[in-house]
């Protein structure tokens, strides 16, 4: 930074201004705000991580709170993506890379590519050679890329907890290919608690920390765990509850829907669209249950149920419909002790009907 570099509060003001124009869909102004700040002395890493990243974080928060429509959310993300691209091609050429080579990718099924993109650009600024593979990278493509390019490490991003089994697949396959893995993103839970369980070599809460940790990882030779099977990380998978719930998810959803119609007469009056939403909600619950079974972590399921109950309440949908769904799921899964216990814990997280 130069002597005229903006201080902390300037940066916050800048970020707030960026939010306003992104919210208004004004891409031109968004690019101008960031580029002129960089011209005025803001360093590029700070522009990425202290100005753009908070705006993107706010997009997620506002969307979750139902204050942004789907269209507005996608528009805002697209604008942020453009601002990052504009920044990447603005100003001085990136330093010649002597640090090594890093692959940055999102887990298969993960569509939120911006956090990974922010990391990719940060690493480039710090002199790494970066291959950014983007959103939802299937494991075979990822592994093919790792063999082809031989990077020093893989940085894997996931925001959705239900992608954690896919993340585990990618982590163990990458390590088996001799490439250590650092993970990040909201999916890995508070404090990154699932990163360790899934055998990742490191976890980082944000792009700066990830860049620091990567430098450490690459500095020492990587010896992949010998004769390591993914099942070794998660021995509880031997009970097959995850496999069976996942394989029969569609049948479970259909059975629960049929039972709801029987016991919840109001559903007879539902429109086709409402029925579809109900089916999607139950499928979503089943998916989170399966993920909690995969990790053997009841808290993951309970947090999801509490969050869903909040959302339903905010939309004026009675939360006890959620409790009914959980009860009916438990009836379908009586032979699955771990699933039944998690459903019971989840049930306790649903606020009682007023």
């Amino acid at each position, binding site marked *: 930074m130069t002597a005229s570099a903006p201080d902390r509060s300037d940066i916050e003001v800048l970020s707030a201004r960026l939010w306003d124009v992104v919210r*208004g*869909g*004004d*891409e*031109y*102004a968004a*690019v101008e705000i960031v*580029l002129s700040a960089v011209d005025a002395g803001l360093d590029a890493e700070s522009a990425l991580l202290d100005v753009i990243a908070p705006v993107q974080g706010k997009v997620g928060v506002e969307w979750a709170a139902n204050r942004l*429509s*789907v*269209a507005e959310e*996608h*528009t805002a*993300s*697209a*604008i942020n*993506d*453009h601002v990052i*691209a*504009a920044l*990447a*091609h603005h100003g001085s050429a990136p330093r010649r890379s002597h640090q090594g080579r890093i692959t940055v990718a999102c887990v298969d*099924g993960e*569509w939120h590519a911006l956090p990974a993109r922010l990391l*990719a650009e940060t690493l480039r600024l710090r002199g790494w050679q970066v291959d*950014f*593979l*983007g959103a*939802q990278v*299937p494991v*075979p*493509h990822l592994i*093919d890329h*790792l*063999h*082809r*390019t*031989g990077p020093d490490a893989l940085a894997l991003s996931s925001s959705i907890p239900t992608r954690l089994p896919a993340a585990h697949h990618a982590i163990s396959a990458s390590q*088996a*290919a*001799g*490439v250590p893995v650092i993970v990040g993103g909201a999916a890995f839970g508070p404090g990154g608690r699932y990163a360790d369980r899934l055998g990742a070599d490191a976890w980082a809460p944000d792009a700066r920390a990830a860049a620091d940790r990567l430098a450490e990882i690459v500095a020492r*030779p990587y*010896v*992949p765990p*010998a*004769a390591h099977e993914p099942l070794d990380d998660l021995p509880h998978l031997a009970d097959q509850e995850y496999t069976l719930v996942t394989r029969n*998810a*569609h*049948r479970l*959803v*259909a059975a629960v*829907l049929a039972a709801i119609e029987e016991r919840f007469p109001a559903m007879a009056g539902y429109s086709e669209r409402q029925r579809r939403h109900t*089916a*999607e909600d*139950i*499928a979503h619950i089943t998916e989170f249950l399966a993920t909690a079974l995969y990790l053997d972590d009841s808290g993951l399921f309970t947090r999801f149920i509490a969050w869903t109950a909040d959302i339903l309440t905010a939309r004026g949908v009675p939360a006890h419909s959620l409790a009914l769904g959980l009860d009916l799921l438990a009836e379908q899964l009586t032979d699955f002790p771990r699933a039944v216990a998690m459903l019971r814990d989840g049930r306790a997280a649903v606020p009682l009907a007023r």
Partner: protein
Amino acid sequence: MTGVWAAAPHPVVVADGAGRVVELNEAAARLFPRAEPGASLAATTPGWLAEAHRAAVASGTVDEPVRGEAGEHGYEARATFSPDGDVIWWLVEDTDRRRAETALVAERKRTALLVEAAGALLTTLNYDRCMEVAVRLAAEHLADAAILVAPATGKRLPVAYAIRGAQVTRRTLRADPAEVPGLSEALQGFPPIPSRWIDPGRLPSWAVPEGFGGPVGAVAVTPLPGHGIPAGALILLRRNDRRGFGDDEEVFARLFAARAGAALSAARVYADRTGITEILMRELLPPRLRHVHGVAYAGGYRASVRSELVGGDFYDVHPGEDEDAESLVVLGDVCGKGLEAAVTTGRIRTTLQALLPLAGDHLRTLSLLNGALLNSGSTRFATLVLASAVRAGDRVRLRLTSAGHPPPLIVRRDGVVEEAATRGTLIGAFPDVQATTAGVELAPGETCVLYTDGITEARGGPLGDIMFGEERLKDALSECAGMPAEGVVERVQMLAAEWAGDHDHDDMAVVAIGAPQAGRPEAAGRRPRGEEVPR
């Protein structure tokens, strides 16, 4: 010594609480010639036995047998107590068992090392990484330092250096392998040659890793057998001047070289093949789309076969010569999947490129393409959509023609989703082509979406095995009113992929053509960003 055990084949010694020998049998007398009744046990037998005796007397018990050497053999000694308090030592020779046990431990260690080495070598199919693993293992287990030399590419010699306990470094040198005696032969891979110990004085400076320090005592050049594919050679450096491998080392060195050679040659084959595939795929992959002449274009593609990146769906944007000329967008779907279908899409894309000057007449273009495809002898047919787009004021004017393809969908500002009124026959099946062209205008913020049936025919959903369908697509698009083209493409792709979940699906391709809103740089005629970073 009395009793039957006086002549027992195993040595027996009886000693009292004061550490004096009470009696001993013939075998014991042969083993400890100076021992006799009354003599001190400590003075006439090995220290380990006298020590065990003192401990036994002091504690009054002996639980575990003790062992040690006597003469040229090893013995295991067990103690019992006689009724008058003396300790009777029973010795059993265990030299052979010990030797077998030691050999077993060594063998197990070697096997474990080989398993570890094979495992480490097999992890990666990347040639450079494989070199690093092999040279690190060689420096750890075969020498003080190792240099792995890969077969030269042109005049460049890829080399990896490892010193035991230090980081591996890789270089590409301009060096002649003939400077190291025996290296050129070792690199050829055929005929097979054994490891060769050479004069350290003849090593060129590049063949000694930086930081090795001190003189090189001994040097071996070991070929890595690649079985038909040259895999490289190892130069092993020792600080001491001992030449040659011991028996154990010899076995290990040979097995290690075989494993390393196999791994390196596999990595080389993989690198060659993927290199070829990559070059071919570059032509087949869909392009990244941008804003051209005031019109926004975005495209997204996901191939069906999970292990392949290319398939039968394709799209292209051919920019018009200037702002007033139409740009041509093509999106199509060749029947079939995978590489074979991709080859046909390549042919169609190339043919259309050649037909660009005629794009003012969609029907004519389609007829010529149809003829070309029929004449090419290809048995595959295709459906496609042609879209010509030009900016007119703040609006975008489109001509849309479907050839057997789902008609494009128009997303209006108010969320209404319209189907473009175009129908036509597919391409490459019949001698004649028929098609109608629809004229459409987009106001700022409106989008025209071209898609392949991989989207609408994706099976999945919460109940499984239900088609995504046109209705769901239209519903999704009605929420996309006012979104930029990239956002629309991302949204459609995301919903269809989420719908399909883990089900296999057909190729999915989407292209959005948008009329930019005021306030977007493309509307202002300025494009502040450069090339997108390739994914």
